[in-house]
């Protein structure tokens, strides 16, 4: 059984923001909502590193654990999705998420946020696969078409890997060996637990 995972190879990420716009393109995410973002650490000084981050589809997802209406669910592939019909926009998943993945169409007084929106691993939501209803609520369902998330597929340097965790790990391991460095699986432990 595949278990879907994201991994961003910081040695390769060049902060080109392709993942960000690929996501916007594929899922028609509105202005102001960014399911994915690239964060650069030590910006402008030696040691600068960029990392692309979105929902990591955690094994034991904190968002799911704190959701008051229990609108999250995990596919057998390990993709964490949510049901916007249930979501009440309370913001708890945003509190809980280590990666800042949950996004809201707005953030206004009296806690008005709208339905939460986040990376779906390009796997849509509970509606019929690739139906217009699913597209309008969650964006594309590439996984159902046998494709992987647009962000990773379009990554300019193939820094962002998305797919079966074992295959992702193999590719990454190979690169690390070639670079003769030590692995820096950023976010991996946090999202999937140690040794996964």
């Amino acid at each position, binding site marked *: 059984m595949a278990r879907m995972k994201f991994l961003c190879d910081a040695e390769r990420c060049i902060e080109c923001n392709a993942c*960000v716009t690929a996501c916007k393109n594929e899922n028609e995410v509105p202005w102001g909502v*960014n399911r994915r*973002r690239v964060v650069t650490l030590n910006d402008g000084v030696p040691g600068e590193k960029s*990392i692309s981050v979105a929902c990591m589809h955690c094994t034991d997802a904190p968002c799911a654990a704190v959701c008051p209406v229990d609108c999250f669910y995990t596919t057998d592939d390990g993709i964490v999705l949510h049901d916007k019909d249930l979501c*009440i926009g309370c913001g708890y998943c945003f509190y*809980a998420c280590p990666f800042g993945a949950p996004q809201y169409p707005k953030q206004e007084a*009296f*806690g008005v946020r709208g339905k939460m929106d986040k990376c779906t691993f390009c796997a849509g939501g509970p509606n019929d696969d690739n139906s217009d209803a699913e597209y309008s609520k969650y964006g594309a369902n590439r996984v159902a078409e046998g494709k992987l998330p647009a962000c990773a597929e379009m990554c300019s340097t193939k820094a962002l890997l998305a797919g079966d965790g074992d295959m992702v790990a193999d590719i990454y391991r190979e690169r690390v060996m070639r670079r003769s460095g030590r692995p820096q699986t950023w976010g991996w432990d946090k999202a999937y637990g140690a040794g996964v």
Partner: protein
Amino acid sequence: MTKREQATAKGRRVHRRIMLWSMLVIALGAMIAPLGGYLFVEIAGAQGFEEVNPRSETTWRDVREGNTGVTTVLGDETGVLIQNGGENWRQLRNGIVANVMPWVLLAALVAIVLVYFIGGRHRLDEKPSGAVVPRWKLWERVLHWTTATLFILLAITGLSLLFGRAVMIPVMGPEGFAAYAGGAMNVHNYVGPVFTLCVAAMALAWVWHNIPTRADLEWFKAGGGFLKGRHPSAGRMNGGEKVWFWFIVLVGGVVCATGVVMDFPIWGQTRETMQQANLVHAVASILWIGLFFGHAYIGTLGTEGAIDGMKTGYVSVEWAKQHHDLWYEEVKDQEVDASEIGLTSGVATTRTPPEKPASTG
């Protein structure tokens, strides 16, 4: 009083003092202890970070510690790669708050039940004569009942958001509960600020009546009249009411403040702030609800004649003498007969009905 009796009384007083302090420590502990979890997680989280990128010594440690970078994506905290607070918050909320705090509520209910069954109702010593004194002005009553209504609304919606997933989804189903929860959240979010204003108004309105006095000490020494047969002296507010008042001002104030912090996520407050606010809010408001149970019990079922003050604005002279003798001395010149001010059925429920048919209700 014999020496033996004196010794017994002293023993009881010591005992009560110990009880009182213990309660206070427990109450404070219940509020502070959940935060101890942070300590635990911080310590636990601080270990196991030996692996450091040889090319940039601190990058990954920085990430784990939640240091921020830069990003072209605008928004709150978008530069933070990992915020650890969220998981701490989850553990504390789902663990301690959700598991320990219900016991506090339960304890309050049990205490009330015990008081009711063991102590019984607190009855008036004398039959009401029909003479009443004004206790609460109209605006005071409006304020009280508005606040009370909002409080109940907030308590129900708040508790629904915390416990509804476990308690109500199995009953209502996810769709039904989500529909309710959406409404509940909005009610909570919009009512909260109004409630906060009410609380503030009450605090300002009644603060002068609630300055602690020596009489309150005596009142507490006497156990508020519950333990002894006779009532200790009290002014307009007795010691218990003052405790309730200051609880609302302090703990309730915290509840309101933390609520506002979460309700207006537009001032740039970080997730960490909101997480902490959420925990404090939950703990404090559950304590408040617990104490509220007591307040409601004492004000209605527990004390005969007490509800009349908030219902009509007047209390019977007998009740005033019994519970607030010092205050009665101040207002006894305003004594009137119930019928003169249009109270058709007098004020005390247990009073023998007058000749005219009752039209209350």
